[in-house]
């Protein structure tokens, strides 16, 4: 869920730092940090209440298999007792808070492992993939968008924009399936299942890295393309707007070289709105895509959350909620702070 302001009037997610310039940037930062606390509490509380009130329970989510012949009221009662389902929601929330206060997120209902361990195993791949994809996306987006903006209206510009719209309108799972069939099966260039080869443990560091990259290329491409398709027109439009600004005209008028104007004046001012957008995109990408992770048998966070929800694995769901809230709020905070620091009106106040 992102919202990004091509429109300069769209405010940053939080209060405009300009309002605080009298009190200085530190005051703003402090206020900004304190504001995340109620949001964090709200997210956690709301998620807790909703998952516990949602229909279905861990006791019914795990019925099935050959154990079905053992379905009995006695068994069901024991399960409810085991998962502490009979206590009222308030009491359960109290217990959970007490445990979390000691950094104990409890045990997964699904396999008994500590929640923190279970989540950490899945966080690494997702985290690494997300950040490498964002870096790659930026490396693609900025030059392409800059080229398009500087040649606005030209044939190449139109082709780039057309391609972006086209890519954006393709659902990722259709693209993913095509990738598997063409690149994975027919051409056999990359593996399309899992994150590591079975002999991963015996490899040396370099081979391991290559192995991980090999396994992440296809799913990475599926996450990358909508991002690029979305960002290129955005950056292009921002840059076009900047190019029209008076200070750029003035820079040209002063006879500065085209290269110098673009790198010293245009690009930095283009990147600032991009920063805001990235702050909103990072969490969306980090959440992972259930559909893609299932399709590529990729052990990421999206699949873990989906499976946990289906099994009503409350401790894991809550652990993931806390983690994602921390990441989302953290990233927004960092972006806001960077934005404030980058804004000369705030910096020199």
């Amino acid at each position, binding site marked *: 869920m992102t919202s990004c302001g091509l429109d300069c009037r769209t405010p940053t997610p939080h209060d405009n730092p300009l309002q605080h310039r009298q009190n200085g940037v530190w005051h703003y930062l402090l206020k900004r940090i304190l504001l995340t606390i109620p949001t964090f509490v709200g997210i956690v509380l709301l998620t807790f209440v909703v998952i516990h009130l949602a229909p279905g329970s861990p006791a*019914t989510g795990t019925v*099935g298999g050959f154990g079905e012949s053992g379905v009995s009221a006695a068994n069901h009662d024991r399960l409810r007792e085991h998962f502490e389902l009979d206590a009222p929601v308030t009491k359960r929330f109290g217990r959970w808070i007490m445990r979390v206060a000691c950094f104990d997120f409890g*045990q997964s209902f699904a396999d008994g492992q500590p929640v923190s361990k279970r989540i950490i195993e899945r966080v690494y791949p997702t985290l690494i993939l997300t950040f490498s994809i964002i870096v790659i996306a930026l490396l693609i987006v900025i030059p392409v968008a800059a080229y398009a903006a500087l040649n606005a209206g030209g044939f190449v510009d139109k082709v780039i924009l057309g391609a972006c719209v086209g890519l954006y309108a393709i659902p990722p799972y259709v693209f993913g399936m095509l990738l598997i069939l063409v690149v994975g099966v027919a051409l056999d260039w990359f593996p399309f299942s899992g994150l590591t080869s079975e002999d991963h443990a015996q490899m040396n560091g370099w081979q391991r890295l290559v192995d991980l990259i090999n396994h992440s290329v296809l799913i990475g491409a599926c996450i990358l393309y909508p991002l690029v398709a979305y960002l290129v027109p955005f950056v292009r439009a921002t840059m076009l707007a900047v190019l029209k600004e008076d200070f750029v005209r003035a820079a040209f008028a002063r006879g500065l070289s085209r290269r110098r104007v673009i790198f010293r004046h245009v690009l930095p001012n283009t990147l600032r709105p991009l920063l805001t957008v990235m702050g909103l995109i990072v969490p969306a990408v980090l959440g992972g895509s259930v559909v893609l992770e299932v399709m590529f048998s990729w052990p990421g966070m999206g699949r873990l959350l989906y499976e946990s929800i289906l099994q009503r694995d409350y401790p894991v769901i809550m652990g993931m909620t806390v983690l994602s809230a921390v990441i989302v709020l953290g990233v927004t905070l960092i972006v806001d702070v960077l934005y404030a620091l980058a804004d000369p009106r705030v910096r020199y106040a």
Partner: protein
Amino acid sequence: MCSARKRMKSKLRIMHVVGVLLAVVDSGIGPVSAADHVFEPIPANRSMIDEGATLRCRLRSEPSSFNPVLMFTAIDAQFDYLLWDRPFVLDENLKWSINSAVVESFECSDDHREATLVLKSGLRWQDDTPLTAADIVFSWQRILDDQVLARKARHGTEQVSKCEAVNPQRVRFIFKEALATNQWSVDFPIVPKHIYEPLCTSDPTMQRSDASVRANRQPIGSGPYRVTEWASGERIVLSRWEGYSGPKPAFAKIIFKVIPDNNAALLAFEAGDIDEMSLAPRQFAEDTSGKQFADRGVKIRGKQWTNYYIGWNVAGSKAFLSDTRVRKALGLSVNRPLIRKRVFHGLFSESRGIFPESFTARDANESTSVFDIAGAAKLLDDAGWKVSDDDGWRYRDGGKEKAGFVLNLVAGSQTSPRVADILRADLRKLGVEMTTQTLEWSVFNERNLAHQFDAYLSAWTCGPDPDEARNLFHSNAVENGRNYVGYLNPEVDALFDRGVRETDPAKRAQIYHKIEQLILTDEPYTFLVEAPTLWAFGHRVRGVTLSPRGPLHAFPGVRGWWTPRIPQPIDDELRTGLPHTDAP
């Protein structure tokens, strides 16, 4: 000479291919396949076996636990016989049998109240501690301990009222009652006492403390394999335990790869990433008919004791479904031939009863399913549900109560919405309005347990003993089992209670035949189709046995699989159906 033999073999195989085609048409049952080599049992001459080979299996999702006392899902059960040894096992016909690698002797008293088990000497756990009668007694205590969530293992074991170690080799079981099912009751898993007893003092649940969790995930088992790697969400690796005293299994390593999506799994199979997978009906009928698949493996179809059915809420608030005539009419409007053809690609057979043939004295020609819309209309008319002149739907005695129901489906199933579409169209013709509601598994179960539904579509796999059906049909099971539809028939109850005490197999079969007839008459469930096992195996796999629960969930299961040592060269001319082995 060798080549001539191969040539003949291949001819035989071509005939089998024809056989499969015929079988698909006439819905023949039994292990039909184009490739008998898959069933070739493990040879006595070990030099023919590649004992260093790795087997790659597909896992749909991850298991919950390796502790057999806590295991309860079908995924867990895949690991049971590999990691653990038991005195008793289910053989490929799901018959109760004695595991000769563990048991010296087993005797049951004539009055069926007492049994004695003598273990072989020299049995060991994987850490070289001796496996003794004390372990069995300890396991029995744990299973019956209320603090342990032994969901599956507890079933039946409750009938053992006393289990005592006479000496380190000898265990005596005393049963609560003299039942025909007592032999099942002694078939419970065994866990190492020396590992779990110290853990249980601080954590009697066997799964709360970190130490217990570690013991459950890296178990010290008694079977021929041990867990050597578990990469979350990706794979589980089992390696052969060379100290195993029983028959040595062929594969040195078994890698279970977690591939949740069926389409992705088939692609992985064709890429050679996995050696076996279960196939969806569509995959069996269509996706696997190309050369890509034939190059990589063969597909197998076998009988399975699984029936798809619709459960009607007999005791629910809908008067419509409480009427036996109405349920009969609904049963008559199920177009099974079309469902077979369109949904199950002709691979499934029409459901003939609730028990497999071997459990009942059913007449082989007895037909249970008829498609008769006119007959159904007449039954509904008789029951007072008449077609309205105004809108064409049926209403009860010309009143406001419309004939119709909501059919609950499980989300994610590819077949059940297709079955529902066919049924809906036929019921429309009848003036009965069926709507569907797709519920996610947990909610589906919750509604069923609370009896809050009109009808649901599900499948039932019959257990190894007909008495397990008590859980679906006995009135006790309304509140305490899976009789979600609230079916009450004192006659059926009495027959179940008689059947479980009858020890003569022939008389037992008569009783269950009677039960089956009564249930088919009352029609609390409408049985639709019988699902076969559909499986794909790589060309190198041998020694597969197909049980009525598929190839994995019976003994010896994967333990009996093997792959030949010498890769057989492929003769292009003979390619069709000829087994070939990938480079090890």
